[in-house]
């Protein structure tokens, strides 16, 4: 017999009350822990993804949508801008690096991003096998993509227009060919299919919903033929079938036939931009019709501030449940003690000091809180894993439930204090038990 055994037996001797206390405490603590784990990983993801992009240029629209879509690969872009603007900026010698990206297509919910090698370097991507795309229709895929969609080097696939669930139609004239797989590095690269920007133009040539800007239109001009759109499409399809083996000559031919007006990019990313150059680009870009330049940092800050009321509510709920848990431990102990009054007197008669009785009751509270903490660790990490799989599905960002933060030990301290504080008054009451009086009422 020892203090631990006595307290433990007493705790499990009132299973319903103890289970209630433990579950309440675990719920409160695990809510807080899940929030902390999510916040930590979200912040880490945002920082690692956003830190190197100093400026984004894209179509006019919602600033936050532009940043989310082009930097974080979340949600729909604001539209496209003409590639000509990119070429114009290229003449500016103060700009060291610029990365155009063109989006809008996907393969089995995975986004296809047309860009150049700079995009991979921006996120310090490294090749696991094969090589980085060098020609149109070649694709280098992220680690998770290769794994999830079983893509291997030499494999081919057909992309579709539209992102995520809403694929409008398949670009089945041309197939992408996987030429490389990237190493896993915990950035957006893991979940993307990357291809030269020209691929996107080729895919959309003749298949754009707005045929005014399609390859058909430019061909029509060439041949000065009838302007019936339907015929143009048929013509285009026929030609496309001839090109099905997509030898490079035909691809180059098509590229040549694309009207420069139809060469578009979704956004231009600027890494490592110095202050002066940034201001001049900002001013210059914002003067252009249909174009805007956005500094990601304040937008990210704004986004985080929009999330903070939600976070506060969850924190509030966590506090509330934890306080209820405290009461549950308190009331459970007090109830049990009024039933065990005689047992306390008995212990005293058998020689237990008042301090021994006090510690045994305090220990019951601490034991309950310890059990609550252990359960909260299990619940929170399983819960985080569930949240993670949802977040990955929804946002294609990597979250994990199997990440342990040292700050979780703070919750051990919180739990222990809760157990101690809730048990304090019951323990003092036990300490003050009048033995003779209690025995005479036994």
């Amino acid at each position, binding site marked *: *017999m020892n203090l631990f055994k*006595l307290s433990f037996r007493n705790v499990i001797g009132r299973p319903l009350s103890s289970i209630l206390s433990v579950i309440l405490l675990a719920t409160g603590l695990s809510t807080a822990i899940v929030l902390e784990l999510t916040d930590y990983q979200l912040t880490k993801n945002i920082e690692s993804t956003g830190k190197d992009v100093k400026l984004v240029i894209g179509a006019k629209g919602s600033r936050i949508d532009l940043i989310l879509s082009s930097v974080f690969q979340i949600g729909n872009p604001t539209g496209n801008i003409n590639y000509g603007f990119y070429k114009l900026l290229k003449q500016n010698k103060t700009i060291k690096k610029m990365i155009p990206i063109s989006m809008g297509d996907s393969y089995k919910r995975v986004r296809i991003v047309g860009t150049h090698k700079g995009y991979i370097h921006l996120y310090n991507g490294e090749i696991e096998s094969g090589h980085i795309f060098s020609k149109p229709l070649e694709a280098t895929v992220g680690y998770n993509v290769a794994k999830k969609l079983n893509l291997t080097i030499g494999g081919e696939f057909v992309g579709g227009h539209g992102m995520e669930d809403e694929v409008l139609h398949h670009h089945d004239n041309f197939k992408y060919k996987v030429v490389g797989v990237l190493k896993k590095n915990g950035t957006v690269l893991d979940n993307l299919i990357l291809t030269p920007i020209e691929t996107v133009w080729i895919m959309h040539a003749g298949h754009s919903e707005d045929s005014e800007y399609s390859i058909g239109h430019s061909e029509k001009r060439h041949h000065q033929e009838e302007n019936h759109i339907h015929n143009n499409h048929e013509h285009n399809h026929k030609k496309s079938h001839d090109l099905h083996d997509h030898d490079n000559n035909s691809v180059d031919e098509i590229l040549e036939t694309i009207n420069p007006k139809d060469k578009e990019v979704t956004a231009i990313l600027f890494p490592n931009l110095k202050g002066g150059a940034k201001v001049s680009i900002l001013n210059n870009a914002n003067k252009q019709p249909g174009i805007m330049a956005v500094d990601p940092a304040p937008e990210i800050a704004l986004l985080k501030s929009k999330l903070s009321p939600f976070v506060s509510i969850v924190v509030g709920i966590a506090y509330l449940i934890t306080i209820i848990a405290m009461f549950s431990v308190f009331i459970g102990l007090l109830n049990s003690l009024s039933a065990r009054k005689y047992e306390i007197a008995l212990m005293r*008669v058998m020689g237990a000091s008042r301090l021994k009785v006090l510690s045994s009751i305090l220990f019951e509270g601490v034991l309950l809180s310890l059990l609550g903490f252990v359960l909260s660790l299990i619940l929170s990490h399983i819960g985080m894993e569930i949240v993670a799989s949802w977040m990955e599905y929804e946002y294609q960002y990597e979250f994990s439930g199997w990440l342990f933060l040292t700050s979780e030990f703070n919750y051990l301290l919180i739990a222990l204090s809760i157990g101690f504080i809730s048990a304090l008054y019951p323990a003092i009451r036990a300490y003050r038990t009048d033995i003779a009086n209690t025995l005479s009422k036994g």
Partner: protein
Amino acid sequence: MILSASGLSISYPLKTIEFPDLRIKKGEHHLIIGESGSGKTSLLNILGGILQPKTGNVLISETDIFSLKKSSLDSFRGNNLGFIFQTPHFIKSLNVLDNLLMSQFCAGLKNKKNDAISLMEKVGLNNKLNAKISELSEGEKQRVSIVRGLLNAPKIILADEPTSALDDSSCNNVIDLMTNLANEVDATLLIVTHDKRLKDRFERRVEI
């Protein structure tokens, strides 16, 4: 002298009770007889150091127990006195053996499981060691509580009405058990009772 008490009194809101002096030698089992309301349970509590008398003192093997510090008195009680009550009480969340070990734990002694087991064998309950308290009959509970009172080999055993809830044959069995075990561990029995059946069993009686 194993126990001597002199000038003991206790006051209640309506009356003050004065108790006769006691001088009890080792091995001299005593009955303390009194009607209900005579304050005999209070006397027992005073002798056991769990109730402070208004006046007087109690010496147990030359130790003036009320001059001890509170925590020393607790430990003194655990090591030198055994209690047996009319209705046996136990810690319900613990099984029989653990309840017995509780008396060692509370007295600050090492757990000596074998002592408990051999005493339980003597009262014929060694098959109940792992039973829950609720699984015992009233008679079994009383026997276990006697074992518990004797487990730490106390100098004195204070028993409060140990037989008044029992029928004649159980009454005799319990008294036999108590005296035999007390003799075995060299303890002196002090039984507080109004049970007239016990008068024939003990030569030494104090009336209050």
